[in-house]
């Protein structure tokens, strides 16, 4: 399988502060759900922000199908097909659900096409369809997350990157969120997600990456990562009995 997205030796940090990512390398293969886990401050969110152009790189490169995309602006990277869903949900609270979805199609010129895609998305998300005229700020946390993810479907990206999709949500809602992630994958979208809740993240993923101290320490099929005793002790909080 050829790589879709490749992060090569990237070093990055915030402002004049220390480097959070240190020559980190990550590969993403098409059609997969890849989950990145690791402790606080490891650089998981930083990695996503570096990929989508929000954070400038200090060293290294990001390649999309062999083409360099580092240094591009976030809106340019979006046009290349990479969509980023940040932790803070990034909705327009004073716009309606429908208007938020419309904003999701900002880079599409054909207005009629945007409306068609909105209708399409609302069919798949009946909960949002019911509230299409409601202000986004009045939705519950889970519904807001649903809206944010549904919004990515308008622009039909190749990769969707999610920063802690389960954050602050009740377990039942988290299940729904991961069902939507599966739905996105069925549309042919490659998913990269960052999770602090390593258990649920890895359980729902195909490939797992462990990021710590700004580097990729371990990598492999998600199931194997989950079962690895070292990972369990370091990141899943279980003392391993085996040597």
């Amino acid at each position, binding site marked *: 399988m050829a790589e879709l997205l490749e992060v090569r030796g990237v070093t990055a940090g915030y402002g004049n502060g220390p480097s959070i990512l240190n020559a980190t390398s990550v590969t993403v293969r098409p059609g997969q759900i890849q989950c990145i886990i690791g402790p606080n401050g490891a650089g998981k969110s930083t990695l996503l922000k570096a990929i989508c152009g929000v954070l400038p790189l200090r060293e290294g490169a990001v390649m999309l199908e062999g083409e360099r995309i580092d240094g591009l602006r976030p809106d340019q990277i979006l046009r290349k097909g990479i969509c980023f869903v940040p932790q803070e949900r990034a909705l327009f609270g004073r716009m309606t659900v429908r208007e938020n979805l419309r904003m999701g199609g900002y880079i599409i010129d054909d207005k009629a096409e945007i409306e068609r895609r909105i209708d399409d998305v609302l069919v798949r998300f009946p909960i949002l369809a019911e509230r299409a005229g409601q202000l986004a700020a009045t939705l519950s946390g889970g519904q807001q997350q649903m809206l944010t993810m549904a919004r990515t479907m308008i622009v039909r990206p190749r990769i969707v990157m999610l920063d802690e999709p389960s954050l602050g949500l009740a377990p039942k809602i988290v299940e729904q969120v991961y069902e939507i992630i599966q739905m996105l994958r069925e549309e042919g979208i490659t998913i990269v997600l960052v999770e602090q809740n390593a258990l649920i993240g890895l359980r729902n993923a195909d490939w797992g990456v462990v990021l*710590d*101290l700004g580097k990729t*320490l*371990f990598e*492999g099929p998600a199931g194997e990562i989950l079962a690895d005793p*070292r990972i369990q*002790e*370091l990141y899943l909080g279980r003392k*391993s009995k085996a*040597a």
Partner: protein
Amino acid sequence: MTEQASGSGEIDKVVAARREMNRRLARSRREGRSWGFAIGFLVILALLPLLQFTGNANYVLHMALYTFMYIAMTSAWNIVGGYTGYISLGHNVFFGIGGYFSGMILAGAGVSTIITAPAAGLVAAACGVLVGLITLRVRGPSFIISSIALLMIMRIVFDNWDYVGGSNGLTVPLTSLDVRWAKIPYFYAFLAIAVLTVVASYKIKHSKFGLGLRAVSQDEVKAESAGIDTQTYKVMAFAISAFFVGMCGAVWGEYLTYIRPNIFLIILVAANMVLMAIIGGKGTVTGPIVGTILIVAFNEYMVYEFGASAINILGTGVVMLVTLMFFPHGIVGTLAKKGRLPRFLDWD
């Protein structure tokens, strides 16, 4: 599948690496303060008037007491603007309140403002509480705007209020001392006020109160949820700051012998306070001192070269612009960040 070699020694390696990274990121502290320097410096300052015996040192004394005054005012501003993070661009309302309060007493009852200064300070502080209760309820930009509006209101009111002399202001009698000794009481008065203010600033910074203020300046919502009564803290900081600025106003009024809105209540006074704090290092103890000395020297140079014209305003603006763009932490702040702060300036 990329994986490292297996074994539990590996887990220890990761943990050790994490500990090392945390240690690197932690900030270091210096031990011991240079009390010797501070006391020595004060002694020299206190003996400065002796120069008057060797010749006419009136210019030196004037510049010195003017600098002391601004050191006090800038340090006081720093308590609200630096420690608490609320930028007041109209802080000289308290300068005006103190000036007029003591000025009226001097004009009416002949009591020197040096004696009434503490009372003037308290009056200013009381006004600070009243104003603060209203304006400190809003954050950031709205607060700054309200501080300017307050100054404008006071200016317009005092310009039109005959009881305080309107736009002609008050004139108070000149001191009866011989011209050789005339400046000396004010010299010591401002020196004392400056020392008081800086000591108060130091004490606040190193107290629980100061820690709370710092929390407010970083993230007020989180400070509140940590149990800090942010409203009380802010108002108290504002009142304390107003107290010292008020005292300065009181003494300056007598020294100048006239108290007018277009001297006490112009925005350039506040702008200078802010600029001195920023160029020295907002939020530090010695920053205001360093900044004041620099800006006073700079202003003197500008007047000497160009006369008291609009070029002053231009120059002040350019200095502020350059400082904010390239040295936002000021001299003391930037040196501290690079770990190069000399001991005699490190009182934080």
